[in-house]
């Protein structure tokens, strides 16, 4: 039904998102897209994975459909389901189906959060078949030539339960992301928020201190995203120390010792 009528344009990105390349990831992605290879982007939270995909979709001028995965998500949430209406039932395409029909880049964010039986439905789309069977509807969709599948996954909180199956992993090419180097991150902050470089460098310094504590009470370091938040708060007139506490310390931990150490780091940096 509705698939072919979907307005492609609503999924397009019209304004260039700011993205600072850390290496040759842009070229690599372009090459992967040219061959329509599925891509996996790995890296800690808030290091710019989603922004990168957004940027590439803009650069390639293709629609982008993003799905944030969670553990309650089922295959039908991706593929589509029958809904009841006044005359009986009606089929509704899920985001993956829509993307395959219109030729969008389908971005499954934080794929490990989804249950493993859910992840399996993407398999036929990721190999030479490039098809998506809709069992319940009895339809086999041949993916649009522009369609590409991208997943992101954060190996940081990899527990035994939250890991991708080998059979899934081995269907993707992968790009590894990490927090940018201090110099680069400073640049990113000041370009993104327009703060002066001096303050940005200080924020990055606190961020680095927090990242050093990863695995010693912190599950994840302070992300670039949080640094951007802090810079934004400072720009809007908040006292730098308060901004740092609010944006960079309070969100990531309830551990009094860590909080104390990071608060001290803030005082030590903003003397």
């Amino acid at each position: 039904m509705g698939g072919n009528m979907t307005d492609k344009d609503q999924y397009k990105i019209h304004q260039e998102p700011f993205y600072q390349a850390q290496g040759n990831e842009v070229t690599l992605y372009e090459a992967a897209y040219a061959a329509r290879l599925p891509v996996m982007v790995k890296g800690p939270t808030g290091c710019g994975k989603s922004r990168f995909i957004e940027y590439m979709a803009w650069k390639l001028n293709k629609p982008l459909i993003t799905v944030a995965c969670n553990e309650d998500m089922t295959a039908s949430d991706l593929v589509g389901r029958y809904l009841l209406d006044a005359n009986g039932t009606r089929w509704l395409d899920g985001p993956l189906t829509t993307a395959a029909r219109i030729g969008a880049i389908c971005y499954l964010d934080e794929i490990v959060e989804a249950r493993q039986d859910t992840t399996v439905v993407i398999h036929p789309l990721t190999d030479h078949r490039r098809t998506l069977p809709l069992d319940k509807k009895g339809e086999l969709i041949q993916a649009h030539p522009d369609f590409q599948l991208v997943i992101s996954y954060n190996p940081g909180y990899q527990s035994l339960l939250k890991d991708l199956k080998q059979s899934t992993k081995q269907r993707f090419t992968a790009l590894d992301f990490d927090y940018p180097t201090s110099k680069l991150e400073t640049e990113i902050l000041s370009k993104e928020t327009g703060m002066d470089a001096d303050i940005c460098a200080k924020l990055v310094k606190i961020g680095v201190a927090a990242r050093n504590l990863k695995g010693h009470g912190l599950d994840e370091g302070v992300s670039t995203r949080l640094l951007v938040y802090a810079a934004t708060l400072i720009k809007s007139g908040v006292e730098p120390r308060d901004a740092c506490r609010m944006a960079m310390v309070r969100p990531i931990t309830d551990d009094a010792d860590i909080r104390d150490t990071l608060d001290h780091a803030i005082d030590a940096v903003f003397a």
Partner: protein
Amino acid sequence: MEITTISDGQARSPHLNPLEEQPANRLSPQAGKSLVIPRAGERESESLREIQVNEFEIYWQQLDCGFPRVGEVFADCMQDALVKLSGEGVSAYIEYARFLGKMGRGAEPILIFLEEWPGIARKSGEDALPAIAECIRRMYKSPNGKAITPFLQSLPSVVRRLPARQQLQEYLNLILDLMERTTGSIHGIHQTFASPGLPSLFKQIAVLLGQLSLAGLKNWVDYGVRYYNDHPERQIDYFSLQSADSRAVLQRERHGTLLMDNERKLDMYLRGLWQDEDLLIPYSSMFDELRQPVPYYDNLGIRLPDVYNDMNGVSGIDRYRATLAHMVGHRRWSTKIFADNFSPFQRMAAECLEDSRVEYLAMREYPGLRRLFLALHPAPAEDACDPERESGVRHRLTMLSRAILDPQHTYKNAHVIEFAQRFHALMQEGDMNTQEIASLAVSFVARTRRQSDQLARTHFKDTVVSYRDDNRQMWHFIEEDDEGEVADQHRKMEPGKEIEGLPPRHYPEWDYNNQSYRPDWVSVYENLHPKGNAADIDRLLVKHASLAKRLKKMLDLIKPQDKVRIRYQEEGSELDLDVALRSLIDFKGGSSPDPRINMSHKTSGRNIAVTVLLDLSESLNEKAAGSEQTILELSQEAVSLLAWAIEKLGDPFAIAGFHSNTRHDVRYMHIKGFSEKWDDEVKGRLAAMEASYSTRMGAAMRHASHYLEKQQADKKLMLILTDGEPADIDSKDGRILIEDARRAVAELDQEGIYAYCINLDPKADEYVKDIFGKQYTIIDKVADLPAKLPQLFISLTK
């Protein structure tokens, strides 16, 4: 005491020697006349002395003291007293000294009083005398006369710590209270034995008041009185800070920031801000007042004082951070240089400037450190050191260091200003290295050298920078190098030689009488249980094969079934077809449909960690009633079956046994750990189980819980298998160990551990409820234990 103008000759003048002159004809007319105001003129000072000498004579008569040693110092003391005391004060002084002289306790009390009182009165006021006198009078009236001398000796240091009158009064009350409670009596009528702890306390009081507030001191004293009142030797150990718990209580009551409490924060500080890590090792800063140890680091770790008090508005934790920042600075930026080419002064200067350099670099990294360093770094007054009389090396270097740190310094010394500027200029050019700093230091020493630097008396005031380490890592010594390595090697353990058992862990014990913990009271030694023959256990299992079969059926019933369907969900993973159809029919039929047409799944796993704690006390060797087997053998069978059952279920579990021989020796025998499999190794240990000694349950439970609490499981269960009440030979009051065990159960509960007792004592009703509340079972017929125990476990965890 202070020695003032009167020379030795006069002090020993014949007038003042009571042995040579009759006291009767002292009050001569001249003496009275000499009190007239002296006439002015060139001989004034001499006449003043004369007057004083005569005046002393009157006082001497009033004092009426026959001790020659008193006579020797009397003039000096009077000189001091006349300066420091008022007219009334002097009379009271003489009068009270007279009392002390007549007291019959020898010359010591009066001597100490004469020498010390003027100084004390200066600090705490002359009106403190009656209170002190009353205190002494009470000692005098009791068998504690011997404590008077130490009491008087300790007074000056007490007054230094407690200058306010109110504080002094509280202190005196505390002393009297202690004395009354520890002075022994026979038949409750007469006090006949002196307080054993009192004199020891006076000897330690300076240390104690240095570490404790008055309230803390009171708690510390109370503890000692409470626990050692009937044990004179232990009491002395306690009050002279010899025993372990004495120090532990002291540590508990101390003021300041303890390293122990903040280790994690400081670890994080190192790791987070400096990407450095090392072992933080505390050293005691308590007992060495004269030579305070200095922080340092070596191959084994970073040594820091065990406690920092707040200083100049810098909190204790920030002082630790400043110290660590300084040491990390050295670790990052200092390189070793050869010491042999430098003189001691040059080395001192090089260390000082190197300290300044690493701090400069550290502050560039974290500008906020400047506030800490500025607050903690002393600022010696420029004219504090008299270069004619004392060596000013340290003083000059500290000034230079301050000038480098503090741009707003006010020093006028041309060298200090010049070298501070040179330092900053050089640092601007490049970061310099240790070698370059050393040459700057050498030229500073050369430019500022003075003859007096060689004097033995060095100016120390305001020259100690408390957060700096001793710089031992800065130097290479050509000659000592080889020996150093040899010494280090000796410390290492011989390869292949295993440690026998672990060092003891100390646990507190609850004292219900006072509703407080006795810290570090019990020592628990943990070791591997010796190994026996694993086949014995297999044989036991075979013996109970039919029982095992029955158990297996029960086990299969409670084995986790992974997926459970939850129906009637508005939001769910799948459509529940039955419900959906019904809804659709309702809908078509015109009535309102049930929207809960989805279903979802949930996994239900078992997530239980279990520790089985076995009482292995002597009583287990007895034959069980109505059975040929001992309780120990039956327990062995029961535990084997239980272990087999738990293994079948796949729950993580540990087994340990315990017994005790006084609080100093609680044995905790490891039989199976959580990570070990139920294999021959473990069965072997179980087979070798033996029983002896007593049952100190609380400590064993606390020790077991420190393993169990680290397990990641939703439910944590501790099964305690015992045949009697907690008891030990060093515990007279049987109630104490019961109450302690009860407390331990409460502690477990707070950690999320469910304690359950399986008691084999038919008379257990009397106490087991007190300890475990409702969480217990009494097995009257011990012969049934092998069957009952696994069943009990299964029903507990169903």
